């Protein structure tokens, strides 16, 4: 029964595949048996992930694309399909966050707004659109969007990120309903804080503000992605699965605030 989790013979496209989460996701999918198309706008990072996947004995290729440019996305996807004959799994992991952009809202430029929105949500739409017809034709497919817990809560000074990630969540739901009859499942994972590109000390400083008291390791997201990419999640579509050390369960009071009130 658990053999449904295996991804042997499947092809997965991972956007943002050169980043911290994207690398971990690519490796987890490969370990479960999938061949991986790594895509990123950063060639060095993307190539490095593809090389790591190859050491696991799976096929891997890096195809450069900026997810905010639909032509680049379309040609990346067309190349992936023509090269390997199919794309079974798309993981929309490309995203951009700017922590602590502490400036008044009236100083946020059009360009900054568009960069946040375009990368985080338009990119997921472009990539899904580019693969949907192929998946519908095969009557199967899995799309996994990497949203964020901050798509369900606000964060100071993070207008673009929170707004875009909320968009990723409702994109997930709408796309799931749109493609459900064609055998395609669309779900989202909403990560909390994971150790990726920032200096270690900055994560260490934030650990105390997470209920579990630690920041996630990118490798911890792998099993959940594999589950949602596999046949084991056949009855799951349009759902959002947070993985956040308890962050979304909290939010009523400071971490550690635990009053005692006898009856």
């Amino acid at each position, binding site marked *: *029964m*658990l*053999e*449904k*989790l*295996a*991804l*042997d013979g499947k092809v997965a496209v991972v956007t943002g595949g050169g980043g911290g989460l994207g690398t971990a996701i690519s490796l*987890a999918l490969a*370990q*479960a*048996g999938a061949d991986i198309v790594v895509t990123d706008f950063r060639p060095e990072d993307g190539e490095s992930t593809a090389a790591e996947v190859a050491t696991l004995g799976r096929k891997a290729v890096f195809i450069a694309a900026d997810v905010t440019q639909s032509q680049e996305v379309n040609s990346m996807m067309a190349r992936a399909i023509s090269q390997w004959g199919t794309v079974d799994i798309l993981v929309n992991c490309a995203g951009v966050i700017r922590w602590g952009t502490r400036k008044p809202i009236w100083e946020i430029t059009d360009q900054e707004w568009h960069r946040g929105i375009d990368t985080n949500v338009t990119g997921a739409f472009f990539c899904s659109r580019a693969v949907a017809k192929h998946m519908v034709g095969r009557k199967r497919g899995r799309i996994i969007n990497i949203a964020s817990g901050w798509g369900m809560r606000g964060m100071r000074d993070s207008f673009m990120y929170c707004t875009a990630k909320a968009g990723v969540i409702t994109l*997930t*739901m*709408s796309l*799931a*309903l749109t493609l*459900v009859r064609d055998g395609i499942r669309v779900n989202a994972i909403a990560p*909390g804080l994971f150790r990726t590109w920032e200096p270690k000390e900055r994560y260490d400083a934030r650990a105390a503000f997470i*209920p*579990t*008291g630690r920041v*996630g*390791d990118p490798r*911890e997201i*792998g*099993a*959940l992605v*594999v*589950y949602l990419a*596999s046949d*084991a*999640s*056949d*009855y*799951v*579509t*349009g*759902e959002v*699965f*947070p*993985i*956040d*050390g*308890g962050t*979304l*369960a*909290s939010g009523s009071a400071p971490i550690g605030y*635990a009053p005692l009130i006898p009856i």
Partner: protein
Amino acid sequence: MIPKEFSLEGKAAIVAGAGRSWLKTMASYLAEAGADIVLSSQDQKQMEEAAQEVKKWGRRTMAIPTDVTNCQQIEEMVATVISQWGKVDILVNSMDLQFAKPLLEVVEDEWHQVIATNLTAVFLCTKAVGRHMIESKRGKIVTISSVLAERGLPNSTAYCASKGGVGQFTKALALEWARQNIQVNAIGVGWASDEAHGEEAEPTDPLARYIPLRRLCRADDIGALLVYLASDASSYVTGQTYFVSGGVMAHG
């Protein structure tokens, strides 16, 4: 390849209650992943069937008939498990009493029964097992809940209140035990079939037509997710209800 993170090798799991007659399938998935299983409900037939499944996977099993609304019986059941197996790593709360009636016709005893089985029993079992989990600084609690933990339904006030309670219990306890390395989560099941590999719903059934996936949820649909939430692979997941609803939760 099945990712090794899903392994429950050497773990001891208690499956409490036998709601929806899914016991056999849930126990089977956990045993396939490597866990030894304690079956703890009042449904003798279901426990026997489940025990057969667990043995097929070569795992140990123990059936302890328990009324999961009875605090003393639960404490005794957990004490027996601890004395015989020395530990409990996983608790699956799978009790589920279904009930639907217009509010004005619901008598107090019915209300109490629904709350007792669907909510209080989760509290009692979790408390009895949690004591040992806190000592050993690790543990996994997974409660089988419902889409009605978050959505309303006419004539289902008591049931919705009980499952909504489970959702909040899950969040609050997840925070309380977060630093003890105990993860507390739930699976919100959609409209369910009692069959393990249930029949397709009638396409003319208005309820089935409402479900984007056009069929009812089967025990088999939650098996792998149950294993995931019971395994170390999910140690950064806590306080969550993961829905397996056939798409129901996505639409308006």
